[in-house]
């Protein structure tokens, strides 16, 4: 079943541009980018048990680094992509460091303050970032021609798929289990020789790296970035995706990213009502589905199997 589902998914996504409009591939790209951020966030929150209210800040660092290196300094786009992730990961580590001794409550505060700080810096450091007016992004070029339309969709899809698979392998590895041990009990983890501080810092860097790469991809997709795209609302949206999908449920992150990207884009013309609906989604998910959508799906699947057996 799993292999068949994966094959259908790959085939469907691959053939998508042939059967639909550009807008649908745009939405699919956006979902892929959000999925990368949320998968990273899920490792940080769901597996390592930390919390981040500033994930969009890491995304911004990646996006701006990518643009400045590829557009300004003229570096190859693959380098810009990696550098965007690396810059975000470095900052993520720095943000993770002071939170080592703190409870989730304080970590939430520090990461929120971090997100706000990024906003303020982006707006005011206008010599580099062009302030609130933002920057135009030059898409990666193949043989001197910038990629257009459908081509960029395939690039984004490929990079995202690679990152998601990377995270999937991580979660099943020794390192992934060490992260979960840290989440369950820090003293117990310490006593069996897990370097708690290292893993927590590392989880922050990991989540930030994913957000940073996603930021570069986002720039490529929209060809324009500005501080507005990376505010607290955006951080909260990623958080909602992670919660709705189910914290600590690997595939839930994808479900949450897909569902809420669609809700967010469909409601875009509805203005303020969009914020109301997103807030309600988060609250209802916490109150009614503590395990997230993926948890609910898994429970339903088990029930079904038991009934047929």
């Amino acid at each position: 079943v799993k292999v068949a589902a994966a094959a259908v998914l790959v085939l469907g996504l691959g053939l998508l541009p042939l059967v639909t409009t550009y807008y649908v591939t745009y939405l699919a790209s956006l979902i892929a980018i959000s999925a990368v951020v949320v998968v990273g966030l899920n490792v940080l929150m769901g597996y390592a048990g930390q919390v981040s209210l500033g994930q969009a800040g890491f995304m911004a660092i990646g996006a701006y680094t990518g643009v400045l290196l590829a557009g300004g300094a003229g570096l190859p786009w693959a380098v810009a992509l990696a550098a965007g992730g690396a810059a975000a990961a470095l900052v993520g580590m720095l943000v993770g460091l002071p939170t080592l001794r703190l409870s989730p409550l304080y970590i939430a505060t520090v990461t929120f303050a971090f997100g706000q700080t990024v906003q303020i810096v982006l707006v005011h450091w206008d010599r580099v970032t062009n302030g609130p007016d933002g920057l135009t992004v030059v898409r990666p070029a193949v043989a001197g021609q910038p990629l257009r339309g459908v081509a960029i969709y395939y690039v984004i899809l490929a990079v995202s798929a690679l990152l998601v698979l990377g995270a999937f392998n991580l979660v099943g590895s020794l390192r992934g289990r060490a992260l979960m041990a840290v989440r369950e009990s820090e003293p117990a983890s310490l006593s069996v020789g897990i370097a708690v501080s290292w893993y927590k810092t590392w989880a922050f860097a990991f989540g930030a790296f994913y957000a940073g790469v996603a930021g570069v991809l986002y720039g490529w997709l929209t060809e324009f970035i500005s501080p507005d795209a990376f505010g607290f609302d955006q951080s909260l949206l990623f958080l909602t995706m992670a919660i709705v999908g189910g914290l600590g449920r690997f595939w839930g992150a994808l479900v949450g990213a897909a569902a809420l990207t669609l809700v967010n884009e469909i409601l875009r013309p509805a203005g303020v009502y969009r914020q109301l609906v997103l807030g309600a989604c988060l609250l209802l998910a916490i109150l009614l589905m503590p395990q997230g959508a993926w948890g609910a799906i898994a429970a339903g699947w088990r029930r079904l199997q038991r009934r047929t057996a």
Partner: protein
Amino acid sequence: VSTAWYVAQVVVSGITPGATYALMALGFVLVFKATGVVNFAHGEAVMVGAYTGLVMHSELGLPYVPAFLLTLVVAFLFGLLVELIVYRPLLRAPVVSVILASIALGQIMRSAVRIVRGDDMRVFPPVFSTRPVAVGEVVITPLSLGVVAVSFLLMAVLAAFFRWFQLGKAMRAVSENQLAASLMGISVPAVFSWTWGLSSALAGASGVLIAPLVMISPEMGFVAFKGFVAAILGGFTSIPGTILGGLLMGVLENLAGVFVSTAYKDVISFLFMIGVLAVRPAGLLGAARIKKV
């Protein structure tokens, strides 16, 4: 004007926002002391309080005092309602869930007010005069002094409440150990209802008080984050520490705004908070709590 007077003026001007932060911080501390969770929708409760006051006083034309008291009642009932719908089901949920639920609630309240009232800024007539008074060469408005005085008054009331009143003691007991408290005959749900009702009423009062200082808008609740930082600086459970943290934040921000950069003054206060947390995770006046396995 000599430099010393100038610095003094900058410090004194910082007391006004500082008192606002302290007032916000008290709301966080009240809920935290009683329930062990943090209400990130407190700023939005303050915002709703300010709008309620605005409607009662400026639009329905009620005199100041009845409008203020009615706002308190409305806010109290609103707090009870929120506790029943949102926080009661999360009694045994992990801290992160409660934090996120309150953030979601804040967003719902913010967008609901934006839908109903629009994005316009509103002004609110001040309780105390805004005509500046000179002390030496330092200028201060009675309004800011008033807000400082009320913050100190509320601080004293809260401290006394937690120390001597049955309900305050029950709240402390519940935050210490819910099971033990209920075995001693304390009704935990009742204590929770009271806590959220009171904190909401406090938010309503804060909203009306600070409304003349900051413009009333759906986004005004974000000022509460500064209050939250103030509470952290103060050590979160210490009421005097909270006031100190608020005033310190206000003064520090003002100094940073004048002597470093206006654009980056928020960044500086965030860095200050992160610095304090890195060195003294329990806050400036808080006692270190040892985590037991």
